[in-house]
């Protein structure tokens, strides 16, 4: 296929945490609200003059200092973020809103606070820690609402004078939804038999939407969607199609590696992926609930975080993956987990068994480093073996010869 016009641009954005769009927004006097967890309602960090940036640490190398503070047993994502913070890589942030969700990310954020990694010389800087509901219930919605009020809206307003009115929220949701719609439209092309966008390209673009001010990204997003609408697929024969499920994939090399084996990544069900991270938020103007409640309900109900512990959700998460696999015509599922991530360790164990036994999908269950380049060979071998097994099963199903 012809290269996407802006792919290189999007890729460049992902080469450093402090990308050019963040710098541009900061020059315009905008307030950068950094965050660490998918369960934090993103539009609330994009109110008025604020813009959200999810912390990530591309091209991570040594984790020595973070390992001193958090030992080698904490997940590499949390250590990579802390290391980058200590190095000064997140100095662009004007506040950090962290979720006390998974323990390790929480500890990373706490270390950032204790070590004053981002707040030196910034009088208005604040660190906030949110409680994230562990069940998808109305009680959870009420909790999240209160948490958003106390840990996002109030400090943003008091410290930076950010407009936290309903109108501002509606505007932020509108912008958020446009990004979601564009991403979902791109994502829907992955359902095609001969898809006109690769999983890698899609991943790069989706990731960029979490890491750069949305307003500054929209033009190129719109242009890219338009480009893909008219893009001619190249008729490449993919060996198999897979849904990737698991921990956040910040290293774009991971999806690239999978696709280099001839495996098409047709759906992304991982932290900070598009399913369900880029599902538009529906706001009902006639609802008795205010906009904030409706935003919080969206995040509480639609989230697929493995830490959500009510059994409807535990079973529901597996069904969600199975439904995606069906909708996106997947041949198999890859459950992946950043090494030492506890929530995904358990989720992939149960998930891989249930998806295999209850839903009949072949499943590859793997752990991986944060930066895939340090384990690329092993991962490639695992994926190749998995794809071969899928191919063999396909042949067996068709009654063909091996």
């Amino acid at each position, binding site marked *: 296929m012809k290269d996407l016009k802006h792919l290189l641009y999007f890729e460049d954005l992902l080469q450093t945490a402090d990308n050019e769009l963040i710098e541009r927004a900061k020059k315009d006097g905008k307030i950068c609200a950094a965050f660490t967890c998918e369960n934090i309602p993103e539009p609330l960090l994009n109110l008025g003059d604020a813009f959200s940036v999810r912390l990530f640490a591309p091209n991570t190398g040594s984790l020595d200092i973070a390992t001193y503070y958090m030992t080698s047993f904490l997940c590499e994502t949390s250590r990579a973020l802390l290391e980058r913070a200590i190095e000064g890589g997140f100095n662009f942030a004007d506040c950090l809103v962290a979720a006390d969700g998974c323990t390790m990310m929480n500890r990373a954020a706490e270390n950032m606070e204790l070590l004053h990694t981002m707040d030196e010389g910034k009088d208005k800087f604040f660190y906030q820690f949110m*409680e994230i509901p562990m069940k998808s219930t109305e009680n959870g919605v009420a909790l999240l609402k209160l948490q958003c009020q106390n840990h996002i809206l109030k400090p943003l307003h008091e410290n930076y004078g950010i407009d936290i009115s309903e109108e501002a929220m509606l505007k932020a949701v509108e912008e958020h939804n446009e990004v979601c719609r564009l991403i979902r439209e791109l994502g829907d092309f992955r359902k095609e038999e001969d898809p006109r966008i690769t999983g890698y390209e899609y991943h790069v673009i989706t990731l960029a939407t979490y890491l750069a001010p949305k307003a500054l990204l929209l033009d190129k997003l719109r242009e890219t969607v338009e480009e893909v609408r008219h893009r001619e697929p190249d008729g490449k024969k993919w060996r198999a199609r897979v849904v990737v499920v698991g921990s956040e994939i910040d290293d774009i090399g991971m999806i690239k590696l999978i696709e280099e084996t001839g495996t098409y990544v047709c759906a992304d069900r991982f932290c900070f992926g598009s399913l369900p991270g880029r599902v538009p938020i529906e706001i009902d103007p006639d609802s008795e609930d205010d906009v904030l409640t409706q935003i919080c309900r969206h995040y509480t109900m639609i989230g697929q975080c493995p830490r959500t512990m009510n059994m409807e959700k535990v079973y529901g998460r597996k069904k969600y993956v199975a439904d995606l696999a069906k909708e996106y015509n997947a041949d198999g599922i890859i459950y992946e987990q950043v090494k030492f991530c506890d929530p995904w360790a358990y989720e992939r*164990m149960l998930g891989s068994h249930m998806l295999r036994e209850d839903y009949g999908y072949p499943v590859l269950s793997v752990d991986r480093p944060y930066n895939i380049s340090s384990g690329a060979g092993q991962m490639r071998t695992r994926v190749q073996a998995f794809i071969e097994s899928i191919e063999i099963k396909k042949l067996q199903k068709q009654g063909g010869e091996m």
Partner: protein
Amino acid sequence: MAFKTVKKITNPKKKKGDQTLGKLYPTNGKTKVFVRREWRGVKDTLYDYSRWLYIMSILARFISKPRNIKAMFRYRWMANYLAVPYMMDKFTLGLRDEPLRITHTAMNFVIYDVAKTMDNIFKGDRRTGNNKKFSDTCVLTDENAMTAFMMGFKDTTAILREVPTMFVANLLTQNSTTHYLDVAQEFGLPGDVCPMPEAEAGISIDDDFAVLGCCAVQVNTTCDGSLMGNGIIAHRLEREYGIPTFQLTAPLRHKEEDVQEYAANDMKEAVKFIEEHAHEKWNWTRYFESAARVNDATRHRAMWLDNNATYYPQFVGSVFSLYNDTNYMGNCGRSALFPPKDKKISKLVEQGYKKKTMICPEYRHRCIVWGVQPQYNIHMLYWMMHCWGVVPLTDMLSMVNTDMIADTDTPENREQAWYDMAWLNENMIMRNRTHGGYKVLVDDLWEFCEIMNADMVMMWEHMSCKALDGLHGMFEEQGRERGIHVVWVCHDLCDPRVYTRQAIRDEFSQYMRTVMREEPLDPTIEHIPDENMW
């Protein structure tokens, strides 16, 4: 900065009986128990022996029931219970006078309580006792569950199914969990998660839990692993055995005001769930009676800790923590049998303090034990005293709620009660420190060092405990700033294959020799051949 020092206290009285303890350990490397009973002088040896006989009588009563014998052959973990008397010997090693009596009073009651729990388990267990009527009145709960949500039920029994299966079993014999860890890992769970929930998941995968109950209430207890392990256990309970489960959430930021309503509401839902399945209505009279007992236990615990802040602590070591586990969390005011024990212990503590009773010949250092203990080597706290003269004044798991809860039945208090139960649930053992932000884990530690006049922190570094590991550097730096010795002792909670008991002791000894420049009080136990002991 100079390191803090504390007054060295020397015991003016010579210890009766055996002066060194190394002679009690087998030298052949094969024997699983001590080579002989400890000689503690006539009076204390007789006392200790009578308590040993009492434990044997509990075991005899337990095993006299056919269903329990049947369980012995059905459940792999049951074999560990042969080691109960030996466990008690580990906890009383080197003790005399009041500390010996306190330890027996507390731990013997824990043994009684666990035996009662097991008896109940097998009474209702579909595979052994199969008493359906009884089973229908049982609610299964987690190992680390604060049973506050059961405080208002009179005829419904809380069954902490994981306590005898995993938690206690590993106190008894060090290798009790290894099989289940292997099972979980074969099933696809990585080996780097906390081995406790991993072993519990393994027991469930291996179908080695007793099966009973009208429903189960699971909690997000100590960590992500613990929370996540619920899923696989509930999956089996619900889909295979038709036992409905409820997941009770305790907020992580439990110190914050803005999470309390959420917690209280979920507590109401949990009680409603139990009422529906156990067919018993919540009884407020029963609840407030239990609440009064919770307060009573809190007052006693505070008194023991106050005593431990003096130069003559009486109730120290692992049994302090284990008794507290049982009373504070497993019981949570529900049983009227605990208060007399608390009272008796308090009396002994007072008596020992007045007599200036000491546990070992010299108190060199006053130590706070922090972090999560290795279940298979929990008795090491006694070794620290006897070998190095380091007194474990308290441990992280014992520093739980000190607030009084509403214990009189009024309309306002009935509403307050939901918040109190939620508060207790949030402040269950371990998770009240591992969750709630760094203040409760790091800042509070230094405060306790001040209050208890400690010059040393023995830091259990449970390598898979991400909540603790995540603040490793902070402990190091802040300990140095404050002049507190932080002695890191690494372990893997309940997997002795990763870190043996001697490797754990060696880490402590190395610090004492190389940093503190000290020699052991009892060199015969610096190296103990207990690799193959229970």
